[in-house]
């Protein structure tokens, strides 16, 4: 299908922008580079919308099923074997188009927002260059038609995240955070890569369409049944491969226990957090699982998918608990992000494949979509607050509603959306997730249900403490953000309110066959979750709307639990222990020592031995004539003896 030939422009435009801005970062003054970046993103945004329109409404649906369209740009870009190659190609199917919308929308908004937010920063052009690079990578990621190509962009996304987190490279904490983010995700990527290698080995293809095809699933199933694939700990290596791939996704999506980089990543400029660490990059893991969903679902009865569900659920709960206690607003949002992504993972994990049974899949994607809007909004709002208050910490804030009404209202919209209050976007997606989970496993559902309440609580804890609560003294009176920032806030707020009404199941489903789904407000599940959210909001209102001493009391009652949660369950410390104390000190240091002293020492020893030998034997050359004669005669006799003896 040639209708989509132009799609390569979508990632290409940001790439060119990046190159242009990167090369001339010094030459281009502040607003110009921002305008260039924004203009290019506007183009991308329009193209994405056009693509979505065309795909969903014009050509995509054939025989009642959305067809995946592949546009090949360069076949065998990197050829491995006859069958395995990295083909540079674009795949257009419901999820990629949906992601296209998400990425281009949020990125576009962030570009606009940053015009105000980054104003006056002396790395302005560099910032826009990085943003373009990220957008390019992310768009590339979602459009990749090849498993290995996704890895390519996966890495590029990682590096742009690294660059953006470490944007303030003179701040040691930012540098450390960027390093941490990169290394942790890289660690996960290693598993991803191994998984790719294994999938490639067994499947003999990296192409998504081939991998997800029924033939492939049959073939792999056949191989497993015939023991042609080794098994390890009772599971076939192919399942292991899928799990490894998922670990890659866990790294990027900050799932427990690879989440530790995400809170630190908040060192980056806030628009970056909104773009990368809330809306787009962190959902790459979800996207990856969705992309390979047929494999996950079918291979060995979806064992790997079970892991997705468990990890997702646990992360959702884990992050929500931590989020309850954090003081830094961006960290609260970060843990909230982690929690919500856990939700999405959970949704995918509990999903089935066909028709209405694939509700979880649809819900996960839907949540991804809505979450991007309201979480982006939350972060941008937080950015506006930080911009005004010059601090990240809640205790420096309070009573801001009066100073910053626009921010406050948009923030409220987002908070309601994430809490799952109808009619805001989050409600619809969250509810469908819970429905799907309920069908799958009650425990998972219950955790999800609990998390929903916690989410409502900590979001409103945040909201009330920032905008109401006790008024603080401010050096400069805070005020609403400039137009560019407010525009983005309002735009996203509108989206966060409305996107929930999109009939998502008619576009994105596991088997790409649309179905009807609608929320039944009479369903006790729905009512329950709404009540749960309201309950959370209510508690938050009691505790935080006015300054009270309930929080302290509660913290005291919780005791150790509170402290652990506040210290993020010491995951960072654990990692530092493992890396520094064990890997650096117990492995790396001895190896370095071994190299310098044993291996190198051995080489030096040869030299030393020679010198020693030389020194010890010098007495032979005594300078005495008769000694020489003695050796001489001795030599003669010795040789004669030897010859005679051996003859």
């Amino acid at each position, binding site marked *: 299908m040639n209708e989509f030939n132009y799609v390569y422009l979508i990632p290409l435009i940001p790439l060119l922008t990046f190159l242009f801005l990167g090369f001339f970062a010094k030459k281009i003054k502040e607003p110009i580079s921002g305008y260039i970046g924004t203009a290019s993103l506007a183009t991308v945004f329009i193209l994405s919308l056009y693509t979505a329109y065309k795909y969903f409404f014009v050509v995509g649906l054939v025989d009642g099923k959305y067809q995946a369209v592949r546009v090949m740009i360069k076949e065998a870009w990197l050829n491995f074997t006859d069958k395995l190659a990295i083909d540079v190609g674009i795949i257009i199917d419901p999820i990629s188009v949906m992601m296209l919308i998400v990425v281009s929308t949020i990125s576009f908004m962030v570009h606009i927002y940053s015009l105000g937010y980054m104003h006056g920063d002396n790395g302005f052009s560099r910032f826009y260059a990085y943003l373009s690079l990220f957008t390019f990578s992310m768009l590339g990621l979602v459009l990749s038609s090849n498993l290995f190509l996704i890895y390519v962009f996966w890495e590029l996304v990682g590096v742009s995240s690294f660059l953006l987190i470490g944007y303030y490279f003179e701040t040691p904490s930012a540098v450390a955070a960027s390093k941490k983010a990169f290394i942790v995700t890289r660690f996960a990527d290693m598993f991803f890569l191994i998984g790719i290698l294994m999938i490639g080995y067994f499947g003999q293809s990296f192409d998504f369409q081939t991998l997800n095809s029924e033939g492939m699933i049959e073939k792999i199933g056949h191989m497993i049944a015939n023991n042609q694939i080794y098994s390890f700990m009772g599971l076939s290596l192919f399942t292991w491969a899928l799990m490894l791939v998922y670990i890659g996704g866990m790294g990027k999506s900050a799932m427990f226990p690879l989440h530790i980089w995400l809170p630190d990543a908040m060192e980056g400029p806030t628009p970056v957090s909104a773009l990368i660490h809330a809306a787009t990059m962190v959902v790459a893991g979800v996207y990856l699982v969705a992309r390979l969903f047929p494999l996950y679902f079918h291979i060995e009865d979806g064992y790997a998918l079970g892991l997705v569900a468990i990890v997702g659920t646990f992360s959702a709960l884990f992050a929500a608990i931590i989020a309850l206690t954090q003081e830094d607003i961006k960290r609260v949002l970060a843990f909230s992000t982690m929690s919500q992504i856990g939700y999405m993972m959970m949704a995918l994990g509990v999903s089935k494949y066909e028709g209405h049974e694939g509700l979880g899949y649809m819900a996960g994607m839907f949540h991804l979509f809505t979450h991007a809007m309201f979480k982006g909004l939350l972060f941008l709002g937080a950015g506006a607050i930080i911009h005004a208050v010059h601090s990240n910490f809640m205790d420096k804030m309070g009573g801001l509603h009066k100073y910053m009404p626009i921010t406050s209202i948009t923030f409220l919209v987002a908070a309601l959306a994430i809490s799952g209050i109808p009619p805001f976007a989050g409600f619809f997606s969250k509810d469908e997730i819970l429905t799907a989970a309920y069908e799958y496993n009650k425990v998972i559902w219950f955790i999800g249900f609990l998390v929903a309440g916690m989410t409502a609580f900590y979001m409103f804890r945040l909201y009330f403490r920032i905008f109401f609560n006790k008024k603080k003294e401010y050096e400069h009176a805070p005020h609403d953000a400039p137009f560019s920032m407010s525009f983005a806030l309002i735009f996203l707020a509108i989206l966060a309110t409305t996107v929930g009404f999109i009939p998502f199941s008619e576009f994105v489903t596991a088997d790409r066959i649309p179905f009807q789904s609608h929320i039944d407000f009479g369903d006790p599940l729905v009512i329950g979750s709404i009540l749960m959210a309201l309950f959370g909001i209510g508690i938050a209102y009691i505790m935080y709307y006015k300054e009270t001493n309930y929080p302290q009391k509660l913290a005291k009652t919780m005791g150790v639990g509170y402290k652990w949660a506040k210290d993020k369950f010491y995951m960072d410390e654990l990692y530092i222990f493992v890396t520094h104390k064990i890997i650096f000190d117990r492995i790396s240091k001895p190896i370095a020592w071994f190299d310098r002293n044993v291996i190198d020492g051995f080489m030096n020893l040869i*030299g030393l031995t*020679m*010198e020693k*030998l*030389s*020194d010890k*034997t*010098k007495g*032979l*050359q005594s*300078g005495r*004539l008769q*000694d*020489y*004669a003695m*050796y*001489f*005669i*001795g*030599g*003669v006799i010795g*040789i*004669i003896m*030897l*010859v*005679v003896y*051996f*003859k």
Partner: protein
Amino acid sequence: MNLDTFMLMRDEIVLTGILLILLIAEVLWSPKNKKGLIYLGLLLFAGYTLQSFFSMGTGSLFGGSFKAYPLVNFFKASLAFGVMVILLQSVEWIKQKLLPNDFSAEFFILIFASLLGINFMVSSGDFLIFYIGLELATMPVIALTAFEFYNHRSVEAGVKYIMLASVSSAILLFGVSLVYATAGSIFFDDIKGALQLPLLEIIGLVMIFTGIAFKISLVPFHFWAADVYEGAPTVVSNYLSVISKAGAVYVLMTLLFITFRVFETEWNWIMYGIAILTMFVGNIFALRQQNMKRFLAFSSIAQAGFILLAMLSNDQMGVKAIIYFLLIYIFSNIAAFGVVHIISLKTGKENIDDYNGLYTSNPKLSLALMIALFSLAGIPPVSGFFAKFFLYAAAASKGYYVLIFIAVLNVTISLYYYLLPIRAAFLRRNEHPIPYFKIDIFSKIALVIVMVGLMVLGLYSGVFSYISSISNIF
């Protein structure tokens, strides 16, 4: 036998003639201007060198006592060439040290006599000529060793040399007598057919071998070499380490390859052991030397060990390799000694540390030193590499891979100490290096000749081809 056949020993005749002319000239020359005598000697020898390159044909004289064939003729020419270069290097030394004592002509006479001895030795067809040649080759050099009779070291070297050389020649003679007793002849050709290898004969052969091994300075017959090289005037050390050693190697080669060929199996493993010993001892001792001459002495001992590699092959491959190696070795060692000689003569400094920073003051000399040492170490594109390569090849052709392995390890050790003077000259930065000095024209010519030789002889394979074409001496 007619007069024409005498031309087979044209070299020897011409050399004898030169000797006589010099003797007479020494007597007749005006005592005031003995300098002319030096030039006369040089000129005459240049003539000799030139003529030695023209072929002399094949044949034997005196009933087989004296043999001439292309390879030996070529070898003699090479030796002559080597001596010529050494003479060029020594002109300045003669002028400084010998002329005041009026010894210049004697120097030439003694050197020529020694060369004459070597010529006879390599051409010999029986033990008598061989023995006479050997003694004639040795004794003038001993006299030269002690030539700086006012210098204690020189005299000591002379004493050590003559006493040990006498012992060695006595042992050699004893061996010859035993072989004579068992084979009934002193002619090589007759011996070759008559060898039965009774015990007595083997003992005789071993003794003969040790006599020659002494000259080549194989371990454990090498002890004199370092002391003598250090004590003797540099020019003489040079001659000793190059010409006299090469001559002995040649004789050993012909004896082992042709005359005592039956003895091969017994020999090979002895040679095997001695080769390893020689390489190791030479290298180990060279490691810690400070004095350049002593250093080169041990290096030349180690080089002798490498030559034995090819001796093991016992065929034409070995002959080629040995002759080619000797040729290159002559060039490299003369170059190395030449540089040492020049510096020692100008500044009196002979230690490696004295060379620190030499490159900054005397770049050309340092370069020459480097090339010479690289050649000795066997590093391409300097010809020493090719020479060594063929030595290994000769041994490898008979399957002695372990030996080659040991040998190349030794090359690595040797590289270490060959790099020491280079390190001193190039790497070390020195505030007060040996000051710049002008090199006399003769030494310069000599150095240029050997440098060109070192660079060309390997890359251009013509010489090797020529040697191959005449190397069938069996």
